[in-house]
């Protein structure tokens, strides 16, 4: 099943490579990866998604927890949570397509953030599924470029991942 694993790690050189290296070393796949500093500049928040069975996830989280740079870790999919992926997508917008792209963007509550004579750049935020659906809905248009941030996630309610 698809898991969202989120962790706080020391904001130090080499920390990211240890996490990423662990995946190849132990034969796991990373589907998405997102990492940035937090409000505490000594800590980075890293969120990744992977599809594995429960046993392998248990082993993976243990191995990640063992990394000295990893301070705290949570499997967000174990509880209620919010996940967001951000996509920037550049599509050809000429002729009939120009109007159609705009309409579809509105339906998905996306924003056109850059307009050119022949292209639109659309920003869309949501779950990975929603972003996938949008790309599918754009099948009729000519997609020039797709950039996604990877999933960032947070637990619902009082539950927090912090020190």
């Amino acid at each position, binding site marked *: 099943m698809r898991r969202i694993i989120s962790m706080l790690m020391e904001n130090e050189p080499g920390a990211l490579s240890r996490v990423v290296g662990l995946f190849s070393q132990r034969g796991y796949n990373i589907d998405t990866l997102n990492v940035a500093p937090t409000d505490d500049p000594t800590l980075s928040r890293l969120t990744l998604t992977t599809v594995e069975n429960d046993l392998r996830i248990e082993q993976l989280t243990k191995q990640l927890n*063992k990394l000295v740079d*990893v301070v705290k870790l949570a499997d967000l999919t174990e509880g209620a949570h919010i996940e967001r992926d951000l996509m920037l997508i550049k599509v050809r917008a000429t002729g009939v397509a120009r109007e159609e792209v705009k309409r579809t963007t509105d339906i998905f509550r996306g924003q056109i953030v850059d307009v050119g004579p022949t292209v639109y750049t659309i920003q869309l935020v949501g779950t990975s599924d929603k972003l996938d659906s949008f790309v599918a809905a754009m099948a009729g248009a000519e997609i020039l470029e797709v950039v996604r941030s990877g999933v960032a996630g947070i637990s619902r309610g009082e539950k927090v991942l912090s020190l």
Partner: protein
Amino acid sequence: MELLSGGEMIARALEDEGVEYIFGYPGGAVLHIYDALFKDCKVPHVLVRHEQAATHAADGYARATGKPGVVLVTSGPGATNAVTGIATAYMDSIPMVVLSGQVQSHLIGEDAFQETDMIGISRPIVKHSFMVKRSEDLPLIIKKAFHIASSGRPGPVVIDIPKDVTRPDETYEYRYPKSVKMRSYSPAQRGHTGQIKKAAKLLLAAKRPVIYSGGGVILGEASELLTQLARKLNYPVTNTLMGLGGYPGSDRQFLGMLGMHGFYEANMAMHHSDCILAVGARFDDRVTNTVSKFCPSAKVIHIDVDPASISKTVIADIPIVGPVQSVLTELLSQIDLLTEKDAGVPDQAALKRWWDQIDEWRDAHGLFTGRRYAESDMIMPQQVIESLYRVTGGDAYVTSDVGQHQMFAAQYYRFDKPRRWINSGGLGTMGFGLPAAIGVKLAFPDQEVACVTGEGSIQMNIQELSTCTQYNTPVKIINLRNNYLGMVKQWQDMQYEGRYAMSTYEDSLPDFIKLVEAYGHVGIQVKKLADLDGAMENAFAMKDRLVFLDIFIDPMEHVYPMHIAPNGSMKDMWLSKNERT
């Protein structure tokens, strides 16, 4: 406060850490450090002949003493040569601190002379690593490295040190921290009491129990507690290859090693057990054979300081994360409480039936209840280990390389004490034995140290005979010479119809006697069984000489028992070339 340069801080920090030996090899990037060692450092440095040997010698020292081994190598090839030894230590959870030189900070990433990304290369084979950016960080980083290497599940830590960080013309205030706390690193200090209570109950209710203990018992200094537990309950004990000596090898309750080349009675007892107490062991593939067929009726209690070792391959019914010493202490007192309450546990009648069954297995195929190797005109390898055992009174430190000789030593030298058996179990590194023996002999100069090897393995680090001359480490090298890469040959006999693909070199072997003499040592050739004990005694009588016993053994012998794979269970074994379970 004292002002020291980066190089001087390293020398001083190693002193303050109580390091006894530095094993290393100088080179451009570490010359400032070497100069500081030369000028003022109480810690002696052992110059090896190849960096791989530095790591193995430090590793042997660590296994024998329990203290972290310390290695100092230069950048580039110095660092990459050390990699095999670091991986060896990592696989067997051996505490080690490796200081590797690095090119000057401003050159990093420019493909400078002798530059290599040591942090990157070593990443999958270290417990942790540090790149030093500022000289003033050195004391804290060194303290952290020793702390991480030797606590929790131990392992190697690499500190990569750019040359400019150690420059002699810039000095800083030096203070070595007494202790260190890290928010992201806190190994378990004790086990969960509820789990330990459950374990005690399950253990006492068992009718066919086995205690299966591994290297963690030795690393965690818990051999005495384990022995106490086993004796109190009168339960049988088997050890992994890494766990030998964790329970007295000559004791009646000891079933011998288990696994691929484990004892018949040990593997049979495991397979038929209804309760396995795994302590500091990791259900490695060389133990379990086919995991899905592993011990079908056993409930598993698994004690380990590393949570990731638990339920990695075999699912534990009662997992207990904690240091084996503290968990076993608590388990013992829980067992005392329960047995006081109910004098009927454990079920003595069931236990007697279990021991009767085990003794039956032991009588039928145990390695010490009859001659289990073939008749031969030549010396049999097993006889060499038995001779070594007799002559050293079973109390030597025995290092080994990797292959048939390693398995014969593990089977036939009955280790009664922990830390006496020193071998590369996880990585299986040929070339480990001789440098490891150097490390052990330096730690315990008055103890007998034997390196059991083969003519294949010994040639992988034979240059260390020179180090032995320089530092006067009179170890005894027991060379089981069969003129083949014996374990490779065994597999080729069993699975490749005797096609000995690249496993022979008889015509090109050196004259080992002349070779060791060239280094200033003593060589003795043994070809007849009648001469074996005499030569062995003779070798150990030469207290202050390194003696190389070149013993010609029967090349056709195989190591048995041997698990039948693939798709076999613990109880499926070859017992000889034509006998199987």
